[in-house]
């Protein structure tokens, strides 16, 4: 019968060593809300589970809007939602994390797990990417910090090497009138996997003109896709700009037909969400003083 071990290292170095030395299939565990589902369904058969939650710093949020934020990799969505300063600075990232699963799931689920599970439909990924998020990875060769969008390479696959795991996420300092938003389309009002997800970050100047923007779509391709924001930069997000954005978003889609949506539906709704999400991010940016 297959055997499964569990270990909960108390330092980064111990964790790296265990992961690097593991001989059989191994899984890192933060919140476990994807891991346990896959384990029970028999979709994965690890021999070792490495629980990171006892490592100091792996849970918790430090920093501020002025300095930027560092978020421990296993910090729960619920904690993110309770953090007033983070929510005020990055409403899009927080609302995305608070859409994963249910309130129960958010009591455990983490940004690291959501990213490394590498589902095309992960809710927090488009928001973190649009916000310019980076991740710090610890491994046998030391630590490295990379843009969040470089981690997922394909559905279920990441660019992490053996022995590596994510220790923290970073969101940049807020400069100027910048804010973000995340919207997703689901058939019900909660509980569904995103049929389309959209994260947008927008910076406006004093006149209300967009000077910078980053847009990421989820669930419409094997990994998140960027949408070329140039069609809205230099505009005040008028109807013409929104129409261009809709078309640009649709053009980036490469979705599949599955039980959650058809290619046609996902593509059209991607355009709709891009417009609506950009509008919310724009209004939030405008409201910054």
């Amino acid at each position, binding site marked *: 019968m297959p*055997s*499964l*071990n*569990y270990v909960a290292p108390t330092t980064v170095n111990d964790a790296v060593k265990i992961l690097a030395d593991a001989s059989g299939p191994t899984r890192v*565990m933060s*919140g*476990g*809300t994807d891991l*346990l*589902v896959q*384990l*029970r*369904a028999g979709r994965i058969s690890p021999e070792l*589970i490495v*629980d990171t*939650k006892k490592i100091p710093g792996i849970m918790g949020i430090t920093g501020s809007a002025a300095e930027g934020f560092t978020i421990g990799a296993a910090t*729960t969505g*619920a904690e993110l939602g309770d953090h007033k300063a983070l929510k005020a600075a990055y409403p899009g990232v927080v609302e995305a994390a608070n859409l994963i*699963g*249910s*309130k*129960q*799931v958010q*009591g*455990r689920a983490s940004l690291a797990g959501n990213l490394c599970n590498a589902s095309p439909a992960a809710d927090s990924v488009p928001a973190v990417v649009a916000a310019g998020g980076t991740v710090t990875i610890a491994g046998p060769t030391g630590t490295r910090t990379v843009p969040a969008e470089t981690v997922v390479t394909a559905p279920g696959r990441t660019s992490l090497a053996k022995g590596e795991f994510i220790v923290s996420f970073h969101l940049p300092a807020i400069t100027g009138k910048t804010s973000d938003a995340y919207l997703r389309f689901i058939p019900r*009002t*909660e*509980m569904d996997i995103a049929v389309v997800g959209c994260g947008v970050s927008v910076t406006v100047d004093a006149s209300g003109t967009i000077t910078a923007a980053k847009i990421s779509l989820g669930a419409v391709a094997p990994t998140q896709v960027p949408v070329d924001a140039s069609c809205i930069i230099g505009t005040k997000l008028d109807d013409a700009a929104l129409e261009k954005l809709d078309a640009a978003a649709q053009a980036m889609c490469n979705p599949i037909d599955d039980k959650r949506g058809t290619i046609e539906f996902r593509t059209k709704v991607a355009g709709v969400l891009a417009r609506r999400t950009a509008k919310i991010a724009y209004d939030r940016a405008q409201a910054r003083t």
Partner: protein
Amino acid sequence: MSKIHVETTINGEAMEFLANPGESLLDALRNTLNLTGTKEGCGSGDCGACTVIIDGRMTCSCLVLAVEAGGHEITTIEGIAQGDTLHPIQRKFLENAALQCGFCTPGFIVATKALLDKNPDPTETEIRFWLAGNLCRCTGYDKIVRAVQDAAAEMRGG
């Protein structure tokens, strides 16, 4: 692999048990500790019938490994009443007929406690979105929401 010894606190009582590494907290509660009030509806975190509170945060016990419970404080449905005094939430569920088959009820009561501990005066929308992770097939949720509102009012001293 041999079982792991887990020392934890459940409903205010120190408890210890042996768990297989891959076993869920739900399985440990039900099968090892005989706390069968927490239910399995789906085993995959989609129905909320297995809701417990860990260190003040509600979660699905089917999504937690039993071995993770060590050193933490867990509240289950069996810990909501104080001895033979029902919690206002439990009384209001009964008075408002907020249960029919009652299978989802433990999960809803624990989730409601987590809600009202954090937000003593939730709006109807806040209640519905907080409880969206708890499926009920019998009631259509109407009387459950009313029971939560009623309990919240009493707990606020209304």
